[in-house]
């Protein structure tokens, strides 16, 4: 187990290192100089622009040798300094991101966890129940094949335009001030429900199908047949199969995180929901490289933390890793 952890930790550190390096490259690799982009937006006199240019080049540290820039970047990261946004000049990137992150967490965490639990339960239930398998699971297939944004668009169209029950955009009414009052929470939830539902539904379909396919294999596994031969009741056979089938679903959760993040991004775009995804789109359209850089860094950190939590969970539920034997297969 210790070896398993050391190995995982090493991979995470390496991943973080590589990802941050790629991240560092963003503004330097991008076509056009970020400072020029910034100045072009400010449309200054040529004289003033020149002065500003050298000022910002210094400020962003772009006049230093590359290795120093790179080192400075690492130092800055550990100080929580991600530069200044161009889109929302002169706000620091870190501030913009920290404002957006809670929206992401409250949207993603419930939709991922609830869809995972509900999908697994439902998939296990549907497996080998003939009419469910033949009628309801095709819906699961269609859901998991649905592009996230399309379901979001459909839900928005039907439930916000045709039947105007829910709002089509934003995380709260524009007039509403952020506060911990019941009115605000109600308003927030009211805006939350559509993006949540579209994320939930697409993921739900995927988990349900994954579980259904897994459990059918497990019900045909040797240990299942032995239980049956010993006359164990159906309930016990299914419970054992479910416990075994859930393991690859946990791994699957880790594998899916990237796709889920992308799904959240486009969902936020459809509903103008002010999370990191929506921020990224704005940053791309405005060539705000420092903001892109910051958002990317945060996504990496989020995904790494989530992966780590999933690893811990896996160790808890799979004894084979705990007793130090199955480490490789995970």
């Amino acid at each position: 187990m210790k070896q398993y952890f050391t190995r995982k930790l090493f991979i995470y550190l390496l991943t973080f290192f590589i990802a941050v390096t790629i991240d560092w490259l963003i503004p330097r690799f991008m076509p056009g100089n970020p400072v020029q982009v910034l100045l072009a937006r400010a449309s200054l006199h040529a004289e003033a622009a020149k002065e500003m240019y050298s000022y910002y080049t210094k400020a962003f540290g772009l006049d230093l040798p590359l290795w120093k820039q790179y080192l400075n970047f690492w130092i800055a990261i550990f100080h929580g300094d991600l530069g200044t946004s161009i889109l929302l000049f002169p706000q620091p990137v870190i501030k913009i991101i920290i404002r957006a992150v809670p929206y992401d967490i409250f949207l993603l965490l419930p939709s991922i966890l609830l869809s995972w639990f509900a999908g697994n339960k439902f998939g296990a239930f549907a497996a080998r129940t003939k009419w469910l398998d033949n009628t309801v699971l095709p819906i699961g297939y269609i859901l998991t094949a649905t592009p996230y944004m399309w379901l979001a668009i459909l839900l928005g169209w039907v439930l916000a335009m045709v039947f105007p029950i829910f709002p089509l955009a934003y995380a709260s009414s524009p007039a509403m001030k952020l506060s911990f009052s019941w009115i605000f929470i109600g308003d927030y939830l009211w805006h939350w429900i559509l993006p949540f539902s579209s994320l939930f539904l697409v993921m739900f379909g995927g988990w349900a199908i994954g579980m259904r396919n897994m459990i059918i294999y497990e019900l045909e596994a040797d240990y299942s047949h032995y239980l049956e031969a010993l006359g164990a009741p159906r309930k016990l056979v299914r419970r054992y199969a479910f416990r075994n089938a859930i393991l690859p679903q946990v791994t699957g959760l880790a594998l899916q995180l990237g796709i889920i993040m992308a799904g959240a991004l486009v969902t936020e775009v459809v509903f103008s929901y002010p999370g990191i995804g929506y921020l990224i789109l704005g940053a791309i359209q405005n060539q705000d490289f420092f903001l892109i850089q910051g958002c990317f860094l945060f996504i990496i950190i989020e995904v790494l933390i989530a992966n780590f939590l999933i690893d811990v969970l896996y160790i808890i539920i799979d004894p084979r890793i705990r007793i130090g034997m199955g480490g490789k297969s995970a």
Partner: protein
Amino acid sequence: MTKPKKRINEILYFALKNKRLRVGLIVVLFFLILAFVGPLLTHYQWDAYVGPAYHPPSYEYWFGTTTFGQDVFTQFILGLKASFLVGIIGGGIGTLIGVLVGFTAGYHGGMIDEFLNMLTNIVIVIPTLAILLIISVYLKVRGVLIESIFIGFTAWPWAARAIRAQTFSLRSRDFVDLARISGIKPLKIMFTEIAPNMMSYLLMTFILQFGGAILIAATLDFIGLGPTNAISLGLMMNLAVLWGALPLGMWWWFVPPGAAIAAIVGALYLTNVGLDEVFNPKLRKL
């Protein structure tokens, strides 16, 4: 060992009997034919302003027109074609890399496996969309081909994992041992001994990569990072949202592209379950 011919006959037999497989294939084929015959049914350019704006579906404009009077059906057909291209190329590349990495890791084991496994894990954890994002911003002019290649190069890890596990279990079988003892080169063993025994598995992996590539492409296109010189189903949805199709209630603009993607990818998944049942006798139900 049954004779290969007999086995193929048997597989064909079960394949034709399998309802999931039949339905899946029919849907995919329907859209495939539509994508390649469709261009004959339209005489418009996808971006030309050919008719009245905000026009719902009619005899003249089958799927209606956009806010600017472009023909939605034309966009749809061309987008469909782009989706299939991305699926085949992106899915193909993803499968190929996955197979190579998975085979090599599973066959050699040891340090090579360790290294490739680490590589796979890293690519899994780094949000691929973020990388695609950067590359897409960097490349000002992008076509469907470039997009497919990017997708293929980032979507392979899970295929590599699955194939590595399969290779591991096949590696220890008698016939592989026999080949190894008789001094045949690893690469040759892979293609002559292991691959044929995994054909069904490879096919299913490709199908899943195919569907996955279409979905990723739609996502990229939707945030405006897709091809810059062509229409696609994702871009249609992007334009629809951008130009107020939702508040204007222009459902004919945003419903067809998403529905087609869901139908194609869903049918691919269904085909896959069907194939699984055909190849794996344990799952066959009567």
